[in-house]
């Protein structure tokens, strides 16, 4: 097991190297660089631009810049953000909790709703409920996240029931602890909806299909024959078997915890990592972009690893290490 985990983590190294190399190359191909907006300002002395360019190493070819950056990263230094003059790790640390909280809320929200709905749709297959939920699910799947977010912005602006943007209210710092919780929760409602609704639909459809498969399995007949109550058959035996394939979906959900909310954060002005990353890409603040990309990539690998481990744990038929 440990050897398997180590092997999987080792694959991360070439992956990260390749991805960062690609990002560096793409950013060097993009027009302009971090200093371009500064060049467009009328009262910046040419000597200053020259001096900053040398300081940042922007006058060197991209592969030299990459080599230097790599050297720093290997020593555990992700570099300084050029725009913020703050170590990249600190900058990400400032924002990571907001995004994590939002993604987790969306995750809990969508799974908590999708699984029961999927089960009900399977149990009452072909009923009105099943049909309606199918239509809604397809509708939800086909609406892009950012569009849903825009609709929610409009909704919030029209009704005034929910705050527009931000993660806290103006008087947040002066609220009691309970008030802080409520305030955060209030600000989380719309982003959570925007982020969660799409995955409700997909998880629900997967759950329904799995459940239907398991209902046709032989052990269901056995269980019924033993005289178990229908409820026990469904919820204790069928459900446990049907939930297995969702474990791999869980791995994917995990991987998007820190990087999946970019669109929603931008449209709903939620101050998280996605916003920071987007601004950094626009500004060409290289080291921040690289660190965010590495973070997203590592989360993907870790998420998949987690899914595999969970699968092995929950399903005795799966063995991670094949014996020769």
């Amino acid at each position, binding site marked *: 097991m440990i050897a398997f985990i180590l092997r999987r983590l080792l694959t991360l190294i070439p992956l990260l190297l390749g991805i960062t190399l690609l990002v560096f190359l793409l950013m060097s191909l*993009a*027009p*302009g660089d971090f200093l*371009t*907006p500064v*060049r*467009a*300002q*009328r*009262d*910046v*002395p*040419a*000597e*200053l*631009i020259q*001096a900053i360019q040398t*300081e940042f190493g922007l006058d060197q070819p991209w592969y030299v810049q990459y080599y230097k950056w790599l050297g720093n990263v290997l020593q555990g230094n992700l570099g*300084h953000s050029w*725009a*913020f*003059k*703050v170590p990249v790790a*600190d900058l990400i640390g*400032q924002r990571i*909790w907001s995004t*994590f*909280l939002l993604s*987790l809320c969306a*995750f*809990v929200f969508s799974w*908590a709703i999708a*699984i*029961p709905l999927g089960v009900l749709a399977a149990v009452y297959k072909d009923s009105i409920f099943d049909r309606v939920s199918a239509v809604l699910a397809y509708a939800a799947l086909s609406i892009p996240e950012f569009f849903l977010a825009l609709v929610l912005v409009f909704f919030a*602006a029209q009704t005034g029931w929910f705050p527009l*943007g*931000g*993660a*806290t209210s*103006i*008087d947040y*710092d*002066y609220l*009691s*602890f*309970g008030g*802080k*919780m409520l305030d*955060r*929760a209030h600000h989380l409602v719309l982003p959570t909806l925007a982020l969660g609704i799409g995955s409700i639909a997909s998880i629900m459809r997967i759950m329904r299909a799995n459940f239907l498969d398991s209902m046709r399995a032989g052990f269901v007949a056995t269980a019924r024959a033993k005289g178990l109550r229908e409820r026990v058959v469904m*919820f204790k035996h069928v*459900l*446990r078997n049907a939930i297995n394939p969702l474990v791999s979906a869980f791995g994917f959900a995990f991987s998007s915890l820190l990087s999946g909310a970019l669109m929603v954060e931008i449209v709903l*002005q939620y*101050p*998280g990592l996605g*916003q*920071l990353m987007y*601004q950094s890409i626009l500004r*060409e603040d290289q080291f921040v972009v690289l660190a965010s990309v590495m973070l997203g990539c590592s989360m993907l690998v870790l998420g998949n690893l987690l899914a595999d481990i969970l699968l092995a744990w929950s399903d005795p038929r799966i063995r991670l290490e094949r014996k020769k």
Partner: protein
Amino acid sequence: MKEKFQLLSTVVIDCEIARKSVEQSFRAAFVGGSMLRCCSYRIRSYSSIAFSALAAVLLAACGGADDSPGRSVRPEPIVQPIPVDAEVVDFSVGEFGANIIETIEGDVATVNPLVNESVGGSLVIGRILDSLVTMDPKTGEVIPNLAKSWEISEDNLQYTFHLRKGVHWSDGEPFTAEDVVFTWQTFFAKQSDPETGEVMTGEDGRPLYRYNSRSTFGQQINGQEPQVEMLDDFTVRFTTPEVYAPFLLFGGGVDILPKHILYDAYEDGTLMDQWSLQTAIDEPWKIVGLNMFVLETYRPGERMVFARNPNYWKVNTQGERLPYVDRVISKIVPDGNSSNVAFAQGQTDFEFIGPDNVAWVRRGEERFDYTVLDMGPSSSTNFIWFNLNPGKNAEGEPFVAPYKFDWFSDKRFRQAISYGINREGIIRGVFFNRADILNGYVSPKRKFWYNDEVRKYPYQVERSRALFQEMGFEYRGQELFDANGRRVEFTLITNSNNGLRVEMATVFKENMAAIGVDVELQFLDFNTIVTKISDAFDYEACMLGLGGGAPDPYAGKDILMSGGRMHFWYPQQQSPATEWEARIDELMREVGRHTEVEVRKEYFNEVQAILAEQQPFIFLVSAKEYAGYRNRWHNVEPTPLGGVTWNLESLWSEVSE
């Protein structure tokens, strides 16, 4: 709300108790949940794990800010007595304690004035730090600020400033001439060899500076540093290497830094990393200043909160310390449009409104009880220019095709284009009459420097055609051909993210079609444009705008002088390419060299006249400015130069409970 501010420390303690009770109520919720027999045990334990994880994150997010490691405690502010030399502000006496809510466009990147490059950042820093002199928001003259008076020596080389006595920094430390000297030291500190102690120099033989800030190079006068010395605790003297008229405004307008806070960082080389946003989050009280506010809290991407500086040096006519306002809460919004939306919904107190948004913002005036004012012409300008760079690229190809270069460098061609533009049409069609015709380099907002006696280019298609014909061009039907039978056509680039500019370019294309010139429009990303006009030079014509800039004409030297980095049509020339550019260089040097305003004005008038005759810039229009404020504010006296909040310290409002 006010009570809660004072009880901040008790709130932190309450948090501990509250957190426990919240944890308990969560547990109670799970117990209650287990009575609903809808899921198996396994599922319930999954969801309870998820829920408790969620609760833990929420707890961490709410509580985290208060007890993160390494965070020192906010010190109790030391309030010093009102300074002997306090400035008495002559506005009606008001009520203390109201809060201002406003928006900042785009997140701020730093609070360190040596690092800052953004407008939002300057706004924030301008709230906290202050300068020796400032500009009169009504007349545009230089007036006393932290310096109560100054003398300029006979030879116009020495400036002696007398500082206000008894002024204290926001943390209660005294402000003296040492702080002024220290501030200038940071600009010109040199890198020295650690072994020999000698100043290190770059390849060009010029010294390498320790802290490359905008002021390091911007405050040099023709490559030489002004000298600063402290005569006594409250007197500083600056010596400029040559007569340099804008020094009073540019040098005197420098934000003064606190030596007692920043000296250690200056010594150990970390000055540029000070006062970052991490400081703003963890220890905002370390950012001390002399202006009317201090930073209280900063939440990344969300907002900044400023509290009144308890040691501010302005008082009202009754001798009470200003400002009236307790706090300024600045919400961070992505752009000007969202900022205008927030104001139009009555959420913010003061706002600048773009000419394209003013119509719908006005609709809310009664409902949300605010006023929208026409502030007159803005300092922004819009113009077109042709690439007049005769150079060649790396492959030896000329930047501009030689036959087109011949057209562009003929002033009659540029004049003909200028006569062919229907500026009234642009104002009507694009700006809905919320703009003015721009005749020259100086926007009519800068009344003092504006020269109206220059050649103007009204919309006259006949004159335009006549000028083309004078150059030997001929019309075949509606289409214009040059003397060698080549179709007269060029490509105009402009940035795609500016809607007004895109519309102006479209009108321009139609206007040009009417005089037989075929214009192809290319809307590009801003970075691409900047690269093209400042580095690659592979373009024919470009439309851009300039906004703001310091009010002294010498601030435009990089644009107007032929060696300048921003000499749009042909930047960084070794020697002036044309006689008229040589003349402008000469005149601009005189503008910088003389201190008598009338003499300077005469030189600068000639610069404007040459620009109008030669049309290297084909100016279009200047948009109007609009400002709005909620009617609950008193003492609001907007001026075109100072905007609505120039007298922020005197603005007050009844405190609503």
